[in-house]
């Protein structure tokens, strides 16, 4: 194999590595974003549901997780709880993009709950 042919193979290898890195550099943040948003949505959903169940059964507000902003409303015989939380979707250096993710949970008010 001549020196020139070896050089061409080396260039092709470098191109392949650069292209692979570029594709990964595009994909990984998108996948990370999807994972963070899904995780936050799940956490918000569980928080909203546990608060809704508590309010429906006991009437008063339970102690909530500080990461969530919880809003409790009553719609007829149903407790409607909205839990919102902030997620850092992308953080590069000092710059950050935050998104608010939330979920709504409903629970029927128990006729036997301990306080109105």
């Amino acid at each position, binding site marked *: 194999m001549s020196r020139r042919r070896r050089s061409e193979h080396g260039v*092709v290898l470098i191109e392949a590595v650069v292209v692979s890195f570029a594709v990964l550099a595009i994909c990984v943040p998108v996948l990370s974003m999807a994972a963070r948003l899904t995780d936050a949505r799940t956490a918000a959903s569980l928080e909203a549901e546990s608060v809704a169940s508590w309010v429906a059964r006991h009437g008063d507000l339970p102690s909530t997780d500080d990461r969530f902003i919880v809003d409790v409303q009553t719609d007829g015989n149903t407790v409607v709880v909205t839990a919102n939380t902030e997620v850092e979707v992308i953080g590069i250096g000092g710059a950050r993009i935050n998104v608010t993710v939330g979920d709504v949970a409903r629970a029927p008010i128990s006729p036997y709950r301990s306080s109105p």
Partner: protein
Amino acid sequence: MTAAKPGGRTEAGSVLPLLGALIFVAFTVIALVTEIALLHGAFLDVASTADGAAEAGAAMVDPAALHGGSIGLAQATAGQAAEHYVRSVAPSDDASIEVTITEICVTVEREHPLSVLPIAGIRSQLISVEACAAPATG
């Protein structure tokens, strides 16, 4: 990259198939992850509806049994309460309810339309969640 090989072929374009394959795999992975995330969100909604319906039904205790010192469900009322809850929260979902004296089980089903996988011929996915609840003191 245009130097000719002995057979007249060059190295030009040799990275192109790799680039194409990588982009295809990357977009497929992103599409699948997005679809799974959306499906998970829909599953949470259906699970929440099923839980609420089971709880609404389990609150309908039988007063006669209660006076007798035991806790049991008023089966007809419990079923109606669970049905009413599903209709008011998720009118488009299908629900099947099984009530016994001690327990109510609600199965909620939703046909979730997929957003990316229709390209592969899969248009929707059935999400089915069963939740059971029983009356109790405490």
